[in-house]
């Protein structure tokens, strides 16, 4: 990476810290978070069809508290006509 195009280090520091602090505060490793996502999607899929590729689940910070935010798009269901 050239000196002139390199990303300034403060931004890397902030991004890395954001991730680390979420894990420290929730005591949830990234592997566990992935497992949680899988379980969540499996549970929802039992009732409704979802667009698995477009799913976004993550932990967001809100001041000193964390929230699990999930955006789970549903697939359009074409109702079968009776008769």
């Amino acid at each position: 990476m050239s000196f002139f195009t390199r990303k300034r280090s403060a931004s890397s520091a902030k991004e890395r810290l954001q991730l680390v602090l979420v894990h420290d505060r929730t005591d949830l490793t990234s592997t566990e978070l992935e497992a949680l996502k899988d379980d969540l999607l499996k549970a929802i899929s039992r009732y409704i069809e979802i667009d698995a590729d477009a799913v976004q689940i993550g932990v967001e910070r809100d001041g000193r508290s964390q929230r699990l935010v999930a955006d789970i798009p549903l697939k359009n269901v074409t109702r079968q006509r009776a008769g």
Partner: protein
Amino acid sequence: MAAQVITVTSGKGGVGKTTAVANLANAMAMDGKRVVCIDGDIGLRNLDVVMGLENRIVYDIVDVIEGRCKLRQAMIRDKHYQELYLIPAAQTRDKTAVSPSDMVRICKDLRADTDFILIDSPAGIERGFRNAIAAAERVLVVTNPEVSAVRDADRVVGILEAEEKGPPALIINRLNPSLVKNNDMLSAEDVLDLLGIQLIGIVPEDETVIIGSNRGTPVVTDPKSRAGMAFRDIGRRLQGQDVPFMDLEPQSGLWNAIQRMAGRK
């Protein structure tokens, strides 16, 4: 009026807790307050050398706890300020020589004749830290704008929340304005956003701090020191005054030199 007990802590070592305690204590003594500092780092005492009082130690905090002397006898009077005292840590003992209730009792005994009790916490989140926060009515967390210090500060803030100590206030120490300007150091805003607590002061990186501890004369007593100025401001905020935050634009460079020559800075 009874004293307010303020504990200075950080999680990570070496971020400037002891320097902060020595400077804030001197700053408030300069404002005429009666201040007692307690070195909470049993076995690794340092507040005495930073304050320049190492040659006056006869008794320490463990002597008080174990009844070998009166509290008054362990209080070392500062060289310059009549109403500033240090209670040193024991050097040859470990943290288990002090319990949280000992700290509460000592602070209670000091309250009537003191305005501020400043406790210098050891690094870490174990016994010594627990002792240091036991009597605290207010906690200041010191950090540096770098990843390890901010991460450890966040751990400490989490523990303080869990202990229901009330929201701590943050001192960002050793901020280098030129590095921040070049985007090679976390800015004060970044650190505040990450930690989500209230700010009580930003202390710029300043070589006069080392010169001060070399001499055992904290930099607040140097009217020209930028770090000293920042500590004096924090001292006044702790006394309840509304002091605006100082301008931390980089001090070097031609434009600044011209402005200084023109008397604008």
